[in-house]
């Protein structure tokens, strides 16, 4: 398994686009900076800035789409060059193959959120919008790591779809719809969708201003939702990979 993971990371070195996508983690902190600059606000509550830079569109749209594209690219690599046959001959276990890809997504997701956290601090503290408070910075780091860890699990259904498809158009379009539905379902029933369930886990301490929940907070339910989607995704991807020759 460790060999598989190592191979996956070695393959990543060749793909410049993957590194380019990591730079998208700077977009929301930068837009948050522009937003507060436009309204000319000073001495902003740290959580208010971080809500926009790290917990808003980053959590609901940008990170899911970036991870969705990464999943699609990782799964398509072997298909594109017809390498899967050779892998099955070695033999590589089908679940091992899938989990090695998942591990890459997992590490990538954490790195993405850590960059977002660092950029949020830099873009908020250096221009003087937010006072330097270690408590809020640690809280931001903690939440970013939670988002990073959970996002990888939340994107497992997309990895499963990418594993079952030879093309990239379907996984790419499903990623868009998946991210968008998570965003909308947050206000209807957050326990139906893994992305909205993840958002509930992130805001479980009720320390993010301006977030009004329409249903009762139930963290075990949110984990259950993510767990069910992941189990179904793993089962489906196992079936899809077994059918592949």
């Amino acid at each position, binding site marked *: 398994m460790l060999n598989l993971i190592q191979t996956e990371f070695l393959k990543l070195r060749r793909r410049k686009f993957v590194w380019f996508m990591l730079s998208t983690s700077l977009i929301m902190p930068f837009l948050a900076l522009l937003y507060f600059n436009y309204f000319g606000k000073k001495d902003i509550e740290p959580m208010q800035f971080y809500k926009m830079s790290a917990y808003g569109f980053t959590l609901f749209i940008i990170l899911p789409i970036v991870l969705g594209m990464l999943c699609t*690219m990782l799964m398509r690599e072997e298909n594109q060059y017809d390498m899967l046959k050779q892998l099955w001959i070695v033999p590589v276990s089908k679940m091992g193959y899938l989990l090695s890809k998942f591990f890459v997504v997992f590490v990538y997701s954490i790195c993405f959120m850590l960059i977002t956290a660092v950029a949020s601090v830099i873009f908020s503290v250096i221009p003087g919008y937010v006072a330097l408070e270690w408590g809020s910075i640690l809280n931001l780091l903690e939440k970013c790591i939670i988002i990073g860890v959970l996002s990888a699990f939340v994107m497992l259904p997309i990895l499963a779809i990418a594993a079952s498809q030879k093309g990239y158009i379907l996984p790419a379009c499903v990623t868009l719809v998946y991210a968008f539905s998570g965003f909308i379902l947050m206000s209807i029933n957050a326990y139906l969708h893994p992305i909205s369930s993840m958002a509930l886990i992130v805001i479980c301490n009720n320390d993010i201003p301006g977030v009004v929940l329409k249903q009762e907070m139930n963290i075990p339910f949110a984990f259950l939702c993510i767990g069910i989607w992941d189990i179904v995704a793993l089962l489906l991807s196992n079936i899809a990979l077994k059918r592949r020759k």
Partner: protein
Amino acid sequence: MRILLWAECQKIRRSKIVWITIFATLMLASIVFIGGLDQYKGPEVHYGLKTVCDGARYIDNAGWYMDEAQPWATFFVLPSVIALLGSYMICREEEEDTLKSLRLIPINEGKLTLAKMIITFVFSILLYLLLFSITFLTEVILHSTNLSAELVISALKEYLLDGVGVFLAISPIIAFTSRLKKYWLALVVTEIYCVAGMFAAMSNVLKKLYPITAVFNLSGYHITTIRNRMGSILILLLCSCLAALILNGLNHNKKKKNRVR
């Protein structure tokens, strides 16, 4: 040119991409519908022909669904799908190694790219019209008596112009990603470009200058002055000129490569 357009239509018919984009549009419409089941609490809102009443579910207001599907589709889903389709169509000839055969015919590559862009443009309008049809039929089922012809015609005009405007706004991205031969990039870049539009909409100046929000000025979704609308049209035309310049560079590069070979 007519033959090229016909050939592109035949190629796109064989590809699954059309069904996948229709699926994305259907999913988008159903998600916005689910979002509309939420109850609105606040002062009564009147904007043009549209009204949202306090205490009622959003979807119970005649015209809300037709109205609201537009920004959600434009900020989150449809431009990315259209950009992906456009850049895929341009890149696939090189990726699937069919460009050599096309050069042997010989085909004017500039015209070929233009045909692909025209198909993307038509596809963009058709996708918006599909979304309009879904929302319109739902509105007819839900409030057939409250729906005025004026509201429906104005929504149809908005959707039609949204399709035109979105293509113009994303055409530089299609051209640029095709030049880089990274159609993956089209999806990610367009999504970020569209989400950034939500922030641009907060500023009165950027609202008319940022291409994605300029689309709403063009379509009439944002009620604005003629001057602002002309400014937005100019921005969108500049976007298409930029796309033409990039694509022109793409064809010159190909010709230079051919000469070297």
